[in-house]
């Protein structure tokens, strides 16, 4: 069923269909409406979920960890400072191999305080051990919320999954979204099978043990195995979803007019939509340009990205956050991915859109037009739309 809804509503609808056992969530702009919609569902009896209206994001994820270890299916959502507050527990959720799904309404981190979109919150959680997926649209946010549940819960993976959607740009704008029938969505997500739950009181387990020099290393290596299994599981789940939903998902990223492109942008999230218009505009003028938009950011599909970019002349990687003191995180991912190739495209890194600064089609056309003049890979940042 096609509906005109916001990104918030799209995420909340996916959650309603999943109907987790526990939702623990704390309000923060621009995430709050997800919590508000879900509270309406609970208070109107549309779902049987236990809603925990916690007193902080730290407690939100802590309650999710408790509920997931107890044997429940759990979801939460946050943004920006909320992510910063709970990131301690996100590392723990990954270390405990708990399949918690979290929607992250991307928003700039303080200071200065700001409520608008950038990806500094997602980047803060980059090394947490959570799988991270980026959505371009409310449709993708809805779709990947459903897929995230399956990826997280797969016994080969058993890791938290963060579904990123750009704050305001996606969360607050009304867009057409195709929703699956409840029964179809529920059947796709399936019943949750907990592993060694606390509530199996006949078989007591110790969760969150203390591991020293003799075991810590091996346990973290085992966690890495879950991450290594994630790409194959991602593709399996995506293939099944594409089939039942009739959507054109195929792969770790969307390759838009990429096959013969000489000049390529790599960008996460909603700016990919803007980039597509820029690509179309320049293609009409005869310039061979294209776009690579990762859905899966962690684990980073390095080999596939390298193969898709190998033929390009110049690749501009756009990062919507500074990684102070070095290049953008996505740029470094792409640079590392390309390193093993004998013949590599030239790379350049643009920082854009911090604190919600608008990035327009003309901005991205200008970027494309600069690329033929980039003579060698630059280890220096360029900025889009910045007043110097």
């Amino acid at each position, binding site marked *: 069923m096609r509906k005109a809804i916001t990104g918030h509503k799209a995420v909340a609808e996916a959650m309603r269909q999943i109907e987790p056992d526990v939702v623990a969530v704390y309000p923060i702009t621009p995430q709050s409406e997800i919590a508000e919609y879900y509270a309406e569902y609970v208070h109107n009896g549309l779902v049987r979920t236990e809603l925990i209206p916690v007193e902080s994001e730290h407690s939100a994820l802590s309650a999710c960890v408790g509920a997931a270890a107890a044997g429940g299916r759990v979801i939460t959502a946050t943004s920006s400072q909320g992510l910063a507050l709970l990131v301690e527990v996100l590392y723990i959720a990954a270390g405990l191999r708990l399949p918690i799904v979290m929607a992250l309404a991307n928003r700039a981190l303080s200071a200065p305080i700001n409520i608008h979109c950038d990806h500094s919150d997602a980047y803060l959680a980059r090394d947490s051990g959570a799988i991270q997926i980026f959505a371009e649209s409310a449709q993708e946010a809805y779709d990947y919320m459903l897929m995230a549940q399956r990826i997280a819960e797969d016994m080969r993976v058993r890791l938290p999954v963060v579904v990123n959607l750009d704050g305001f740009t996606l969360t607050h704008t009304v867009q057409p979204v195709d929703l699956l029938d409840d029964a179809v969505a529920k059947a796709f997500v399936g019943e949750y099978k907990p592993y060694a739950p606390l509530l199996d009181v006949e078989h007591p387990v110790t969760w*969150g043990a203390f591991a020293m020099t003799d075991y810590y290393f091996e346990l973290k290596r085992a966690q890495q195995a879950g991450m290594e299994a994630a790409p194959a599981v991602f593709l399996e789940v995506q293939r099944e979803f594409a089939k039942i939903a009739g959507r054109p998902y195929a792969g770790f990223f969307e390759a838009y007019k990429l096959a013969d492109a000489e000049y390529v942008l790599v960008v996460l999230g909603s700016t990919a939509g803007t980039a597509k218009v820029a690509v179309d505009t320049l293609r009409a003028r005869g310039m061979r340009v294209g776009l690579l938009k990762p859905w899966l950011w962690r684990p980073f599909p390095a080999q596939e990205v390298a193969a898709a970019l190998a033929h390009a002349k110049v690749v501009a990687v756009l990062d919507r956050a500074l990684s102070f003191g070095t290049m953008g995180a996505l740029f470094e991912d792409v640079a590392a991915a390309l390193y093993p190739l004998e013949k590599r495209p030239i790379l350049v890194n643009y920082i854009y859109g911090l604190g919600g600064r608008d990035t327009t089609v003309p901005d991205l056309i200008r970027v494309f037009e600069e690329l033929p003049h980039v003579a060698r890979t630059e280890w220096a940042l360029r900025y889009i739309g910045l007043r110097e």
Partner: protein
Amino acid sequence: MPSIRVLAEREEKGVRFTSGHTLCAGCAEPMVVRTVLNAIEDPVVVATPTGCLEVATSRFPGTAWNVPWIHVAFENAAAVISGVEAAYKALKKKGLIDKRVRFVVFAGDGGTYDIGFQALSGALERGHDFLYVCLNNEAYMNTGVQRSSATPKCAAATTAPVGEVIPGKPQERKDLTEIVAAHGIPYVAQAAVSHLIDLANKVERAMKYEGPKFINVLTTCPLGWRTPRDSAIQQSKLAVETRYWPLYEVIEGRYKINYKPKERVPIEEWLKTQGRFRHLFRDPRGKELIAQIQAEVDRRWELLLKKEQCFGVGD
């Protein structure tokens, strides 16, 4: 009310907290943990924040816990148990679990009075059905005896040392039991490791109430208090006799003092037995400081008597 025999029989039937942990010789924590767990008949799930108990009982691949147990971080045990309890309710609604399961937190004073205070207050306000037991040893013992807001005035701690200018901790301890009572939860109590039957009775009474229950247990620490390893029980008993640590309950807002010492034992009788207060008996300022400590003990005791008088349960 559970007698020693009943507690022992339950332990025989199924040990919930086993030996083989690495808590210090003379530590009072295992006595409190075993007494609390044996005073509950139903199956339990336990959450413990970071601290002595967690570190000493869960070193991978071993465990001292023969009940389901979880540790997540230092500041969030009350939030973690909120999630466990909520999942229990959800699975019960779905008919996936039929047993009655009880939820217990064992946390130190650092994880309760200080870093875990917000999560505790949130869980109390939301009304989750759980028992929170504070193993109050009055400082951050696990990390090396740093001061907490439960540390008594003048006690030496590694972050409140006895210096040339400042003699130990300058501030009074936070009255957390009263702060918890102010949340209006059904059951709040203070207990002490020297009075284990009183503790068991309190646990049994607490578990009759639906909602949050809180018991603040004075849990002596030979390492941090600098007392002999065989003195945990005497130390605790003296704390009760000097009225430093009154045994009392607040049941649905009604106060009951469980034990009123017949004679007023001066606080210095307790202070002088502990290394952490030794300076008070050597320093010329000591006399005045002891008088201040005594005045605060008296003030809190009088206040408690008045509360019992005004809002008592009656006999």
